[in-house]
C-alpha cells in the first residue's frame, strides 16, 4: 500500500510539471498572438454582440496551424488555446502509461475511455 502510494506521488509530480509547462507554453503563444492581433486590429471596432461563429479557418486544426504559420494573430491565439486544451489530454495520456507501468489494467481501461472521449471532442467536426 505504502509502496504504491509512493509510486502515485511520483506520477503526480510529473503530471504537475506537465500541466504547468502546458499552461505556460499556451499562455506564451496566446500572448504572442495577442501582440500581432492587436497591432493589426487594435483600432477596429469590437463587435461580439451577435453570434456569427468564427471564420472557418479558425475552427479546424489544419486551418489554425496554417493561419499561424502565416502569422495571422487570431490563428496564433487559437493555436495557443489549442495547446491549452491539449494539456489535460496529454495528462490523461500520461496517466494511461503510468497505470500500465503499475500493471493496474482496470485503470488503464478507465483512462483510455476518458482519452478516447477527449480525442473525439478534439478531432471531430
Amino acid at each position, binding site marked *: 500500500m505504502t509502496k504504491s502510494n509512493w509510486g502515485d506521488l511520483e506520477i503526480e509530480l510529473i503530471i504537475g510539471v506537465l*500541466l504547468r509547462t502546458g499552461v505556460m507554453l499556451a499562455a506564451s503563444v496566446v500572448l504572442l498572438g495577442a501582440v500581432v492581433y492587436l497591432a493589426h486590429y487594435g483600432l477596429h471596432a469590437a463587435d*461580439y454582440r451577435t453570434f456569427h461563429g468564427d471564420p472557418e479557418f479558425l475552427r479546424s486544426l489544419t486551418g489554425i496551424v496554417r493561419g499561424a504559420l502565416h502569422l495571422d494573430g487570431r490563428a496564433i491565439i487559437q493555436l495557443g488555446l489549442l495547446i491549452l486544451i491539449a494539456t*489535460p489530454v496529454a495528462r490523461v495520456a500520461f496517466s494511461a502509461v503510468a497505470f500500465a507501468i503499475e500493471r493496474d489494467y482496470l485503470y488503464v481501461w478507465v483512462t483510455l*475511455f476518458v482519452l478516447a472521449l477527449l480525442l473525439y471532442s478534439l478531432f471531430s467536426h
Partner: protein
Amino acid sequence: MNILVFSGLVGFGALLAGFLGALTGLGGGVVIVPMLALLFHVDIHYAIGASLVSVIATSSGAAAAYVREGYSNIRIGMFLETATTVGAIVGAAIALHVSGGAIAIVFGLVLLYSAFLSSRDRVEHGEHLPSTPLATKLRLNGSYPTASGVQSYNVRGVPAGYSLMFGAGVLSGLLGIGSGAVKVVAMDQAMKIPFKVSTTTSNFMIGVTAAASAGLYLHRGYISPGVAMPVMLGVLAGSLIGARILVKARVKVLRYVFAVVIVVLGFEMIFSGATGRL
C-alpha cells in the same frame, strides 16, 4: 469601443475574477460569463467558449501546485472523469440546441445554488466509515498526509457520487464553468471523501472535464480568439497572483462579498434570460 480598449477592459475584469476566485476558493469561472454577457454585451455563446478556456487554464495551473502536497487521488479522479467527460459532451450538444435565454436562466440558477453552498459551513465527517464493495473493487480508498501522520480514508456512495458527477459534467459543457461546487458536493457529501482530497481531486478533474467540451466548442466557432485571449490571460494572471497572496484573515469577508456578487449576477442572468435580452 475599439478592440484595444475592449481587450484591456475584459482582461482587467478577468484578472479581478481570477484573483477573487483563487482567494476565496470559489473559482473565477462562474463570474466570467455574466461579466461578458451583462457588462460587455458579448453573445453568450462566445462568453461560454471563453470561460471554458479560462477554466482549463486555472485548473491546470493550480493542479501543478496541489499535486506536490499529495492530497489528490488520481484513481478517484480518473474513475469519476468517465462520468464528467460524457456529461460534458452531452452538455455541449444541448448548448447547440437551446437559446441563449434558456442558457442564461440555467446559469442564473447555478449561480444562486453556488452562493448558497458557499454560505454553509462545511463540516468534516469525522468518523471512520467502512468502505462499500464497489469502492473497494475500484480501488478508490486511499490515504493522505495530515499534521498527525498519514490518514487513510474509505469511499462510499459510489453510484450517487457518479450520477452527480455526470450532472456536473453536463453543466460544465452547457455553461462553460468548472462545476467545482457540484463536484465537491458529490465527493464530500455523497462519497464521504475528506475535504482536502475532494477539493484537490475536483480541481484536478475540472480541466479534463472542460477539455472534453472545449474541442467541440472550438469546431463550432464558439471560441473566438478576440474574446478568449483577454479572458484566458487575465484569469490565469489573476489566479496565479491570488494563489500567492494567502491573506487568510480577510478571506471570510471576501467570500461573503463574492457570494453577494454571485447572487446579484444570478438574479440578473435569470431576469435578462427571461426577458429575452440575452
